[in-house]
C-alpha cells in the first residue's frame, strides 16, 4: 500500500509572533518552524498502516520554501520513506486552492492508494487544502478522522462530528484528514534521524509537474489578506461606584448600555 501524506511547515505556536502590519503578514524571521501538529497524526497513521501491512511506502509531500525541507526531514526521521518538496517562487502567495492545485499536480504523477492530511494547519486554520486536493484528484474525502479500519479496496472511518462520531465508508483510493485522537505520534529517534539524511528528498518546480505558473501564486489567489493586526489589548476593569445596591445596579446598566453598548 502506497500512502501519501501532506505536510505543512508552520510556526511553533510557542514562538513569539510579530505582526508586520505594513505588509499584512507575520514577521517570520525569528520563528521556530515545526511540522503542523495535525500532520504528525497523519504521518503516524500512515506509518502504522504500513507497519501493519508489512509492505508499501510512505511519501511525504510539501509545498514551500527551502526551509520546508526541515519539516520533511523530520517526517523522514519519524519513519517516512521518501519526500517531495515543491519549491517554486511562483507558488508563493498562493491561497488554499493554489496550494491544493500544486499538491494535486504532484500527487497525480505518483502511484498511491491513500492520501492523508492533517485536519487543519495551525497557522492559517483554513481547513481547505485537503478538501480541494481531494476535489482536484476526484477522490472521496472524509474529514476529522479519529479512527480508521482498512478493508479490501475500502476504508471505514470514524469521523468526529459535534456531539459524537459518524462511521463512514469510502472506496480506495481516497483522502482523509487526521484529527487529534487518531493516534499518538512517535518521536523521531536518533537512528532514524541519521537514516533520514540518506533518504531521498526530491525537489520539484512547477514546470516539473506541468503546472502553469499563472494558475497559482499571488496573482491567481481568490483570497487576499488586506490587513493584519493583533487583537486590541485588554483594558483594565472599571469599578462601579454608588452608595446603595440599587444605585450600583442602575449605574451598571447605564454603563452596559452606553459604554459597552451590549444592552
Amino acid at each position, binding site marked *: 500500500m502506497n500512502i501519501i501524506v501532506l505536510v505543512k511547515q508552520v510556526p511553533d505556536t*510557542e514562538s*513569539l509572533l510579530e505582526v508586520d502590519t505594513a505588509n499584512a503578514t507575520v514577521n517570520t*524571521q*525569528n520563528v*521556530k518552524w515545526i511540522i503542523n501538529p495535525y500532520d504528525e497524526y497523519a504521518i503516524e497513521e500512515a506509518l502504522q498502516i504500513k507497519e501493519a501491512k508489512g509492505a508499501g511506502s510512505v511519501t511525504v509531500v510539501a509545498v514551500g520554501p527551502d526551509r520546508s525541507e*526541515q519539516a520533511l*526531514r*523530520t517526517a523522514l*526521521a519519524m519513519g517516512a520513506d521518501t519526500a517531495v518538496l515543491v519549491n517554486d517562487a511562483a507558488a508563493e502567495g498562493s491561497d488554499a486552492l493554489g496550494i491544493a492545485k500544486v499538491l494535486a499536480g504532484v500527487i497525480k504523477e505518483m502511484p498511491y492508494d491513500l492520501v492523508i492530511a492533517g485536519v487543519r494547519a495551525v497557522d492559517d486554520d483554513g481547513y481547505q487544502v485537503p478538501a480541494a486536493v481531494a476535489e482536484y484528484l476526484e477522490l472521496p474525502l472524509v474529514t476529522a478522522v479519529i479512527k480508521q479500519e482498512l478493508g479490501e479496496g475500502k476504508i471505514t472511518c470514524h469521523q468526529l462530528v459535534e456531539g459524537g462520531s459518524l462511521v463512514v465508508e469510502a472506496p480506495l483510493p481516497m483522502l482523509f484528514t487526521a484529527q487529534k485522537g487518531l493516534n499518538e505520534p512517535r*518521536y*523521531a*529517534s*536518533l*537512528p532514524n*534521524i*541519521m537514516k*533520514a*539524511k540518506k533518504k531521498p528528498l526530491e525537489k520539484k518546480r512547477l514546470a516539473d509537474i506541468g503546472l502553469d505558473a499563472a494558475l497559482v501564486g499571488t496573482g491567481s489567489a481568490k483570497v487576499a489578506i488586506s490587513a493584519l493586526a493583533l487583537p486590541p489589548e485588554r483594558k483594565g476593569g472599571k469599578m462601579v461606584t454608588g452608595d446603595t445596591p440599587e444605585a450600583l445596579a442602575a449605574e451598571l446598566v447605564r454603563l452596559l448600555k452606553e459604554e459597552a453598548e451590549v444592552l
Partner: protein
Amino acid sequence: MATTFVSDRNLNFLLHEVFDLASLAEHPLYREHGRRSFDMIIDATLKLAKEICLPTLREMDEQPPVLTEGRVEVHAAVRRFMRECGDGGWIAAGFPHALDGEQLPQMLTCTCRYIFAAANYSLSVYPFLTAGAARLIANFGGAMLRKTYLPPMLSGRWQGTMALTEPQAGSSLADIVTEAVPMDAAATKAGSPYRIRGKKIFISAGDHDGVDNVVHLLLAKIAGAPAGVKGISLFVVPKLRPQSDGTLIPNDVAVSQIYHKLGYRGCPITELEFGQRDDCHGTLVGAPHRGLFYMFQMMNEARIEVGAGAAAIAQAAYGAALNYARLRPQGRALGAKDPDQPPLPIIQHADVKRMLLFQKAFVEGSLALILQCARYMDLEAISTGVEMEKYALLLDLLTPVAKTYPSEMGILSTSQAIQCFGGYGYCEDFPVAQYYRDVRIHPIHEGTTGIQGLDLLGRKLVRHNGRALGYLLAEIQATIASARNTAGLTAHADALATSLDQLDAVLAHLTVVAQSDGPDAYLADATVFLEFFGIITIAWQWLLQAVPAAAAEGTARTASDRRFYAGKRHACDFFFKYELPKATALATTLLHPARPTLETHARHF
C-alpha cells in the same frame, strides 16, 4: 506560556558560534554527522523534553517513590521515558557504532542531557545513570558481560546504577566493607562469579518498577584484598540474575529503605542489602583490585554531568523568574510620585535586573564551561600523542570546577529566582521553590565540594609537574589576546589578566606553605581555592563568548539577534563588574597568614 525551561538560541550560540561543533564532523570519527543532523537531534530532544519530561515535573515532586513490599514504585512517566530514551537511541547516543550507538560527540550528548535535566532533573537521571553504568561494562567488561547486559540497558529495559556508598564509607571509599568471595577459588579473573555480601546506601534508582531489572555496578573488596583504595574491585550485580536460558531469577538484593529527601524527589535513593541469604552473585569486571581506577575513568563525565544538572535546573528557574518579572506590576520609577500612574513590571527595576543578570551570567557561564569540557573530551577522542595528553589534562583539571561552580552557585541562582517572585516564590504555586530544593543535591553527590577542592589543589594542579595548569593558562591567554583586539573588551581582557597574576601569586604562596608547613596547611583552604579558581574560569568563559558576540552584534540581520548579542554583552559586563572582583577578596583570604580552621580545635566549638 512559552517554553522557557531552556534557551535554544543560547544553545545554538554556544554550540556553533563559540565552540564550532560542526567542525568535529570533519574528523572520521564523527563523519556521519553534520550541522543538519545536529540541529535535528537538538529539535527532537527539545520536543521529547517538552512533551514527556516537563509535564510531570511537579507531579513527580508531589508523588515521590514509595516502597511497598520490598519494591519501589515510581511515577508512570519513568517507564515511558526509559522506553523512549532506549528505543529512541538517547541512552546509546554516545556509544560507538560497534555497540549500536550513534557515536555522537560529547558536546551534543551533553547538550541533550542538559535539555532533559532542565525540563525535569529527576526523570533525566534514570536513562543517563543507565548510560554511565553501561559504559563501564562496555569499556571494562568482557564479551559475556557486554552481550548479557548492554542490549537491555541501552534499550532502557534495565536500569543501571552506581553502587559505591556505604554507611561508613561516603567520601572515603577506601573504607568500604562489602565483600566478594570467589565461587570457585581457582576462578578469580575478569568475568568470574563471586558471592557478594554487604550494604550500600543512597543508591540512586537502586530499585523501581519503571524497568524490568536493575544492574548495579558495585564496588566491593575481594576477601584478602590489600587495604585501602588499591583493594577495591568492580562487580556487575543484577537484581534479577539472568540464567543461561534467558530467564531471570532473584539475586538476593533487597531494598531495606528509601530516603525522604529535600528535593530531587522524583528519583528514589535506596538502601540495599546484598547477600542476606548468601545467594547474591556478582561478576568481576576487569582485573581484581582495579575497581576504583575503572570508576575514576568515568568520573570526569559523571562529575561534569552533575555540573550540567545544576546549571540546567538553574536555567529553568531563571526562565520562570524572567517570565514572571515581565508580568508582575509592582512599584513605580524612583522619581515618579504620582500614585495614579500604573505600576511598572518589576523587570524595569534596576535591582530586579541585577537579580536576573546574576542568574543569566551564572547559567550561561556555567553552561559554556560544561560545553568547553565536553569539547575537550571530543578533541581528546580525535587526537593522538601530545595533543591528546593536552586535552586529557585540561579536562582533568577543569572537572572539579565544572562540577562545583555550577553546583554551589546553582543554589544562589535558584535562590535569586525565588527572590524575583517575592512571597509567591516561597510558596509552591510556582516551580521555583522546587528548583531550589532540587538543585541542592549537586554539591553533595559525585564527591562533595570539599572533596573537589582537595582534588583540584592536591592532585590536578600538582600532577605531571603542573603541566595541566600550563595548558589552561595558554588557553586563557589566547582568549585574552583575542579580546584585546575586540572593541569594548580590552578592559575585561586586562581584568582577567590581573586575575591570572593573582592566581600566580596565590599558587606561589601555597607552594611555600606546602614546603614549610606540610599538606594540612597547603590544603586547609582547598575549597576556598576552588571557589577562587572557579570564578576566574567562568570569567574566561564569558570573555570567550563575548568575542564572537561582539563581532556578531554589529552584523546581525534581525532585531532579535541584535537583542541576543546585546544581552551577551551586558551579561559579560555584569560578570566582570559583580563577580570577578570576588576573586580578589578570595585571593586576600588565601594569602592571609592566619589559620583559624587549623588552629581551632574540636573542643573550642
